[in-house]
């Protein structure tokens, strides 16, 4: 058995740190708000002990905590060595027997008995564990309680218990919630200094999510403001509903920056921020969270998700407010999940998307917007051509949001702000919808004009006004 012990001298978020340690081993135990134990014997092919120590130090830095890290063959020995740093276990002081007796929790009864025994051993002239181990078990049993025999056995044989099932179960906190209270000197109102603090707490939340094998899909950020008589509302909150999940702080932070700069520009903070809180509201399984040494797929995935989220966040607001564009009106109800992308209550459509063909007679309804992950894009590329295989006449590459009315006067088409002299008409191609669904009947023509433009126009068959033609697109 190889056990890593992290011994904290100051109060620290031990449960949160222990949860983040799940990424290295599933065997985690706590000692009553004082130490974390990780069993790593079976992981020696995944990482070296030195590398793990460095990574644990980096993790502690993230959580702004300090701990002494030791690795030993036993739980109690790792704890004792962390508490009393000595090069060899024989040199450890007799006080280390308390940790040997009860490594996972502080038991006052046992501690009292062991301390009495330590006093008696001192009277006999013993100072270190090495000297204690040299004692004969027979002498121990006659002078001290049975606990001394057990302690001697543990130290002599060098094992606490072979079975890991006897390790106390560590239950990580159900919710991921990271917060920080700012000191008086740290309090600030502007965005840039706040982002430093936000980065720290988001970093911690992400470390915990990664350890769970999950990715973030929805989160909230809260500011608690200093209570002043001029401040009506002392709490500001934002919800980040991400169209694609995020697994790293590097992708999420630009999004938070964008949102906060937008929101604080509209309504600035009335007083300094006293406390910040970041709550993880929804997560998704992070299938690809383990990085591949020889491939950059995971990094690309993160970059892709981050880009889409940023684009949707910044541009999406405008899409929701702008006139509904061609492809969007087109999306048949239910074909694309129109959802609240930004948590503002605005039902927007994604401004950055992958287009997908849909079987529909109406040209403007023949595609829809989707937001998919990079992996899905890769899969589709492997399949090859994704599109229609029904031979239809060429559609124009530019389609108008709304068909525009033209008047046909002899050989000329007249719009509100333009006129075209017709050279030739190609068609018609009749498109008609189902009588039980959306009724539609259009005769489409490809019109060549004198200035070289090619228009895509339609006429409604059997219409009373024969001169009415609708411009629907350009062959640009």
């Amino acid at each position, binding site marked *: 058995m190889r056990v890593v012990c992290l011994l904290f001298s100051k109060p620290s978020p031990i449960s949160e740190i222990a949860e983040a340690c799940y990424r290295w081993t599933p065997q985690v135990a706590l000692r009553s708000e004082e130490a974390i134990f990780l069993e790593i014997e079976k992981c020696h092919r995944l990482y070296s002990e030195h590398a793990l120590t460095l990574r644990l130090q980096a993790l502690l830095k993230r959580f702004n905590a300090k701990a002494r890290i030791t690795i030993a063959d036993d739980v109690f020995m790792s704890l004792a060595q962390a508490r009393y740093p000595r090069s060899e276990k024989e040199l450890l002081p007799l006080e280390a027997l308390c940790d040997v007796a009860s490594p996972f929790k502080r038991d006052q009864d046992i501690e009292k008995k062991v301390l009495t025994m330590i006093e008696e051993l001192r009277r006999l002239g013993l100072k270190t564990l090495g000297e204690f181990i040299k004692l004969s078990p027979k002498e121990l049993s006659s002078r001290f309680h049975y606990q001394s025999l057990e302690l001697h056995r543990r130290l002599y044989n060098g094992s606490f218990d072979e079975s890991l099932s006897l390790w106390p179960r560590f239950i990580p906190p159900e919710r991921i919630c990271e917060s920080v209270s700012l000191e008086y000197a740290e309090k600030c109102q502007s965005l840039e200094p706040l982002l430093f603090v936000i980065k720290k707490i988001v970093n911690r939340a992400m470390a915990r999510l990664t350890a769970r094998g999950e990715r973030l899909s929805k989160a909230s950020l809260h500011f608690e403001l200093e209570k002043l008589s001029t401040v009506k509302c002392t709490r500001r909150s934002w919800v980040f509903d991400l169209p694609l999940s995020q697994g790293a702080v590097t992708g999420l932070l630009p999004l938070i920056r964008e949102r906060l700069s937008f929101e604080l520009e509209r309504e600035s903070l009335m007083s300094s921020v006293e406390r910040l809180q970041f709550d993880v509201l929804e997560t998704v399984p992070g299938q690809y969270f383990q990085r591949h040494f020889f491939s950059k797929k995971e990094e*690309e995935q993160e*970059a*892709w998700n*981050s*880009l*889409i989220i*940023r*684009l949707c966040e*910044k*541009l999406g607001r*405008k*899409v929701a407010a*702008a006139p509904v*564009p*061609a*492809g969007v009106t087109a999306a048949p109800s239910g074909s694309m999940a129109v959802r609240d992308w930004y948590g503002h209550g605005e039902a927007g459509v994604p*401004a*950055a*998307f*992958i*287009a*997908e*063909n849909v079987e529909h007679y109406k*040209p403007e309804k*023949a*595609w829809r*917007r989707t937001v998919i992950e990079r992996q899905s*894009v890769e899969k*589709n*590329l492997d399949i*090859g*051509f*994704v*599109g*229609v295989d029904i031979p*239809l006449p*060429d*559609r*124009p*590459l*530019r*389609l*108008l*949001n709304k068909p525009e009315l033209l008047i046909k006067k002899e050989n000329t088409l007249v719009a509100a702000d333009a006129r075209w002299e017709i*050279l030739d008409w190609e068609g018609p191609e009749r498109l008609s919808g189902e009588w039980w669904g959306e009724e539609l009947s259009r005769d489409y023509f490809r019109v*060549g004009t004198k*200035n*070289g*433009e*090619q228009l895509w126009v339609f006429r409604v068959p059997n219409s009373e006004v024969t001169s009415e033609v609708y411009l629907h*697109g350009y*062959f*640009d």
Partner: protein
Amino acid sequence: MKVLSRTSRHQTTVEDLRELCRKTTRLEREKYDFSLHPKGFPRGVLIELTGLGKTEVLVQFLAENPKLRVAWIEESLTIYPYAMAQRGVSLARLLFIEAHQEVFWATFQVLRSHLFDCVVLSSKRNFDEKNLRRMQLEAEKGNIGVFLLTESIHKAWPIALQLKVNREICSQGTKLDVIRERT
């Protein structure tokens, strides 16, 4: 090492060394193949396409280069993805962005992500030189081809290649005229 040994043995002249420097420092840009422009489109530069039929030309280019990952940016979306699929472009490798007023911001985000081989910016507005220069730098850094689909030719030095599309009505063919080419 080779250069040093050569100079010491054969008393190479300054002209020889200059030629050698020229050979080693000349950067041959990677190119995208395209049947309508036999020289190919260089990567890492700004390419402007104008004239009637410019979108058709670009879509044909995308169909001929099926491995390229493309970001298609417009102020208000007018491109018809269904028609692109009809012309043999796989929609799965295209990211469409409807950027409204934030066209440049979206373009820089896309260029900096280094996720795409090509960026297409279709806009009716005039591009100012400052933004074009920034785009040029980003394109060069990421070795990304940036295609500008415009109504008329810009007189801006950051654009390396300017092409005008001539649609020949009678033969239904298309021709590309090079307005400016900077290597």
